């Protein structure tokens, strides 16, 4: 998992190990682009640009630098004529008109599927009944279902599977029937 993407424009190292960049300063970044490797226990692990980053590499951490999780491996800025977008969640942060927000009632880790590989509990467009399980929130190894308070349709999901959520954070938008 990548550390939280900041709008200031630094890419944090997703793994612990020795940084080996693959692209030079001046490269325009796009989602999924391979920018280098982290060598961990002698094995190179690819580092790709996560979603939500658009810009040009201004500064590159030196090849061979040993980095902890989250240490900056490159800094980027807006390329000429390009608008830098914020994190995709923040970009969508507005509410959905006529829909009810389902918020986390505690800090924890949210799971959108009953088990890895299974279909999600509630995908956008899906009809849900009152008391249906929308997700599981794990707190200290205890899993608690998030129940839908109303019958309606899932219009938007604002969290990723196995994402850390904070108390009060909006997870789902449900349009009541």
């Amino acid at each position, binding site marked *: *998992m990548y*550390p939280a993407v900041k709008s200031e424009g630094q890419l944090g190292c997703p*793994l*612990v*190990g020795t940084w080996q960049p693959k692209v030079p300063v001046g490269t325009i970044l796009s989602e999924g682009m391979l920018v280098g490797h982290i060598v*961990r*226990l002698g*094995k190179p692990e690819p580092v790709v640009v996560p979603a939500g980053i658009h810009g040009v590499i201004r500064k590159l951490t030196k090849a061979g630098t*040993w980095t*902890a*999780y*989250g240490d900056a491996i490159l800094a980027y800025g807006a390329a000429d004529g390009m608008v830098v977008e914020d994190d995709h969640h923040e970009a969508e942060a507005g509410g959905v008109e006529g829909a009810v927000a389902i918020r986390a009632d*505690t*800090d*924890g*880790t949210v799971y959108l599927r009953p088990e890895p590989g299974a279909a999600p509990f509630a995908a956008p467009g899906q009809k849900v009944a009152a008391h249906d399980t929308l997700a599981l929130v*794990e*707190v*200290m*190894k*205890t899993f*608690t279902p998030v129940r839908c308070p109303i019958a309606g349709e899932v219009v938007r999901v604002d969290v990723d599977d*196995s994402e*850390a959520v904070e108390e009060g954070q909006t997870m789902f938008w449900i349009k009541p029937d």
Partner: protein
Amino acid sequence: MFRRLMIANRGEVAQRVTRTAKRMGIEVVVIASTADKDQQWLNEADEVVVIGPPRSSESYLDQCTVLEVARKTNSAAIHPGWGFLAENDIFAARCQALGLTFVGPSARHIKQFGDKSLARATMTNLGLAPIPGSKEAVSGLAEAERVAAQVGFPVLLKAVAGGGGKGMRPVDGPSNLATGLQQASSEALASFGDGRVYIERLIRQGRHIEFQIMADAYGNVVVVGDRECSLQRRHQKVLEEAPAAGLSQAERERLLPILTEAIRKSGYTNAGTVEMLMDEHGTAWFMEMNTRLQVEHSVTELVTGLDLVELQLRVAAGERLPLKQEDVVTTGHAIECRINAEDPANGFKPSPGRVTKLRFPEGDGIRVDTHLREGDKIPPYYDSMVAKLMVHGSDRADAIARMRAALEQTEIEGVTTNIDLHKAIGRFEPFVDGSYNTTSLEKELMETAWRDSI
């Protein structure tokens, strides 16, 4: 001795191991997830490396990362603490392959005792009798019927790969055996990916007794006393005491040479705990062996005056155990209350959050192992245990009196804890008179007066 030690753990565990290592003059490297990176216990280490996001699977359990950090920081050894990678034989083997000392038993012994059926067979061969039952997993109904008839009903069907109280099914009589076996096997397959099941005689009101073992690479084995952990909720220990309240001196003396000889013959090294279940006649039977130091090791430290982490490090560094069996002297009685951030009035729901007030008692006969400071935020990602409140008294009655007083002086605000449950235990007759068993907490205390009081 090692120059540098890495601790692959967090919280109270990391702090506990750090303090002993620092006292021994060893440099300490600790790892932290981003959820823990500003926590106080990290300040006691010489070096801190942030290794990943909050989720354990991407931080404390990520073996490649943990090993990379150990190598890069020139650590000679890794102490796994308890929990996380402590009983992972693959991790122990990978440490060895990279020239790092794993502070614990060999990968072979972790594997041998981690498989419950193999552990039963091993201990039987070494002379320590397990709970009567099938020697290994049963092959089918015919064998199950034969074994059940031998040991007598009721029996307990247990998943070979089970643990923590999961994968167990009691069977009252012969007519229910076929259905029980089929259900136990399919449940085990669904939960653990391994449908093998073995049979044990069901001990209904057993007592959980355990023996602390320490062994070096030169064949020296010392039993560092015993503990009782019968106060359990959902098979999780709530309170422990040393010495074991329910163990007779005769049974203790009967077991001591058998245990010592079994461990010596197995070639096991470092710390371990032999967990046993004592039946209504006072006879203790082998249940399982934990191949690590346990949470409750500290009550043994209180009554023996030994530092078990120090002994672990010495043995791992190739030294001989600095004590013999006759040097282990038990003084008085110790009790440990596990303080968890959970809400007993609300089905023991975990209660993470900001600790707004924190006060623990201090003084003679009191030991509090905690990483918690006032103002800390308890993250939701890890275990709910936040402190171990321990007392040491001249005898059991004195220890209970001290426990009651210590609990009265403890204040934790901002999060809900199980302190009131411990206060109720302090006045619970079967605990006070020492007659309790593994069902007492759930079947008596929690089902009666205490439940009405919350």
